[in-house]
């Protein structure tokens, strides 16, 4: 593993193909042109393959590995869009059974492999982590040697290096001062050494790829931090009008936040109004103008116990509209969804079937029905069974889908002086089934509804990190794309003045500079060894 000392006296790390200082090919079969990409530096220390750490390092250093990681991640992300993600399946179902019942065996496999919450599945995080590792290691392995090589490069280059550049010429004689002046007028940085010149321009564009990678790493770090406690909250909060609910993710040492939904407002555009008439005439149905929740924020005392009736202190009032969140501390509440006219209370009257005579009215709170309703004079009604969201199950038994009163049904027992043992009836929406021949029935007497609002509770301390990463990424891209590193070497040799030039891309631009140079000075025009247009196109695309 000894270092290689070039004939110019510079000591190069093992594996270097072009001397960092003078550019002499250190290995006889090395082609200068193809080695220019990383300045012929020992970019991959493949030779250090002794330990596990080195082997891991070298694996991730490979660009090929990096590209494969990107492909695998893209394919996985694409597969993740085949069935809906867990966030988008109905909230009350168990994903373990939902995917299989909905999409069959493929759905089950999808679920078992964790595609249903792709960004949170361990193997996807490992893939992203490996990509991060690959970016860091590949950049270090290339960036540092490149930096060293560009920093130590000398004015005087080896003949072999000069001769093997793509653009090369030999002039009989040339006025150095003139060349220097002309290149400086083209904003080249020119150094002189023993009558030789080295002019360079836009070296910083070579760092573009690395700046870009730093941005990516910051971006990935931000994405990773979302999983760390306290950095990121993304929850849904449903609140019924007139009710207060605790806001998920907002419990801290000094209390828990609560939110009251005072009113949910849904406004539609008025089609008759002149201003909107022409725009809306082609649309069927109504067009929403505004979704709004009027809310009040409260906070509990610091020592609030979960579940206990909270002692609330009002913090502030607010209005939430789409894209106009309600903010407090580092949280924001966004208008996300709503449910209009949820059944809240149902009223019935006890009626004698033969006469139609009514013996009192009862109002059932669908969220907390009473067991008994006493109507006076010996008339009363009891609720035997309550099905908030009625369904006949597989055994044809009355049952409920869940605890939401979307389709309420009851089994009532009706008692009167004439029927002291009680009469039973099953009553639901547009259903009234009697257990036998009843004298009485429950007749429907009205319904009260309430609106619900759904808000997204969001806290995101990672957003600025992700934005910063994205910004740095763009700086790197710009740096590498809109600038290029042009170099021109002038060397005094016995047979005349040698000139060679190189750029990492945009050979056209470099040639224009050189044309200008040979026009203004006595320097012979540089000849392009690869003047083929196809090659020009290809190398101009090489980043």
């Amino acid at each position: 593993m000894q270092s290689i000392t070039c004939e110019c006296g510079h000591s190069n790390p093992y594996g270097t193909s072009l001397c960092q200082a003078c550019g002499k090919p250190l290995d006889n079969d090395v082609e200068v042109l193809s080695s220019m990409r990383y300045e012929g530096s020992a970019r991959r220390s493949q030779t250090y393959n002794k330990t596990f750490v080195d082997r891991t390092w070298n694996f991730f250093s490979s660009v090929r590995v990096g590209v494969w990681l990107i492909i695998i991640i893209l394919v996985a992300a694409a597969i993740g869009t085949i069935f809906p993600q867990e966030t988008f399946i109905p909230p009350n179902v168990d994903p373990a059974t939902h995917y299989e019942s909905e999409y069959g065996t493929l759905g089950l496999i999808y679920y078992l492999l964790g595609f249903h919450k792709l960004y949170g599945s361990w193997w996807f995080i490992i893939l992203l982590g490996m990509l991060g590792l690959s970016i860091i290691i590949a950049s270090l392995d290339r960036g540092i040697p490149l930096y060293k090589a560009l920093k130590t490069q000398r004015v005087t280059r080896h003949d072999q290096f000069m001769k093997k550049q793509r653009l090369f010429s030999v002039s009989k004689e040339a006025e150095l001062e003139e060349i220097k002046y002309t290149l400086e007028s083209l904003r080249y940085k020119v150094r002189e050494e023993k009558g030789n010149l080295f002019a360079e321009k836009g070296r910083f564009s070579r760092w573009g790829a690395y700046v870009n990678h730093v941005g990516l790493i910051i971006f990935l770090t931000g994405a990773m931090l979302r999983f760390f406690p306290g950095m990121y909250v993304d929850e849904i909060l449903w609140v019924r009008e007139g009710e207060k609910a605790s806001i998920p993710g907002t419990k801290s040492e000094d209390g828990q936040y609560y939110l009251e939904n005072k009113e949910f407002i849904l406004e539609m555009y008025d089609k008759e109004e002149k201003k909107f008439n022409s725009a809306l005439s082609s649309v069927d149905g109504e067009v929403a103008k505004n979704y709004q929740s009027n809310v009040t924020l409260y906070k509990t005392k610091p020592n609030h116990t979960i579940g206990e009736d909270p002692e609330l202190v009002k913090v502030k009032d607010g209005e939430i509209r789409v894209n106009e969140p309600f903010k407090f501390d580092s949280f924001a509440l966004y208008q996300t969804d709503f449910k209009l006219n949820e059944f809240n209370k149902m009223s019935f009257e006890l009626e004698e079937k033969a006469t139609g005579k009514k013996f009192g009215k009862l109002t059932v709170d669908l969220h907390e029905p009473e067991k008994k309703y006493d109507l006076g004079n010996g008339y009363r009604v009891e609720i035997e069974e309550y099905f908030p969201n009625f369904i006949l199950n597989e055994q044809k038994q009355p049952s409920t889908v869940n605890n939401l009163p979307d389709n309420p049904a009851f089994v009532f027992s009706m008692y009167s002086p004439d029927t002291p043992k009680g009469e039973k009836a099953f009553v639901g929406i547009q259903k009234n089934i009697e257990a036998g021949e009843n004298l009485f029935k429950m007749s429907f007497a009205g319904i009260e509804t309430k609106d619900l609002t759904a808000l997204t509770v969001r806290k995101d301390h990672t957003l600025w990190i992700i934005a910063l990463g994205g910004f740095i990424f763009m700086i790197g891209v710009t740096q590498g794309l809109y600038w290029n590193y042009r170099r021109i070497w002038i060397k005094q040799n016995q047979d005349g003045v040698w000139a060679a030039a190189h750029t990492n891309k945009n050979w056209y631009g470099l040639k224009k500079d050189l044309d200008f140079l040979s026009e203004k000075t006595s320097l012979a025009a540089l000849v392009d060894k690869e003047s083929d247009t196809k090659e020009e196109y290809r190398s101009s695309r090489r980043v």
Partner: protein
Amino acid sequence: MKKKRLWFRSALLAILVIAIGYTIYNSIFEESGTYIKKGDAAPNFVLTDLNGNRVELEDYRGKGVFLNFWGTWCKPCEREMPYMQRQYETYKEQDVEILAVNVSETNVSVKNFVDRYRLTFQIPMDKQREVTKAYGIGPIPTTILIDKNGKVVGRTSESLSEEKIISFMEKIKP
């Protein structure tokens, strides 16, 4: 020089592996910022049961608590209830309590259910879903095992067999 490089490489790889590992660890419990998992202290809560009596978790310190979240409409919950009742009768002598928190249902429905299955353990009623939210309960049934020191020693969302319930009871028995 060579040693320095090995150290640098090992350190960088170690940092990244730790970062990724910690991220995965968090992602498994990412359901909610307040997701209660194994090893956490079980947050105290106060609810009332069907008869209006106050039930506070802290009062059970010193006993093992089998904390179950359920609903009458949930079939897997219904399936495990008789097993829970039977094992409750065995293990209540050994200082294991069952708190079966009902998730936001009406007294009428729950009362009927309790009568049908003759349940005798505590049924705290989480009307406002406050406890359900605080414990980050997604699908029900979810069972959380709390030891005598108030520490969570297990959590599962599967429908439990009687054998499983017995093994849980043994685990939290003081």
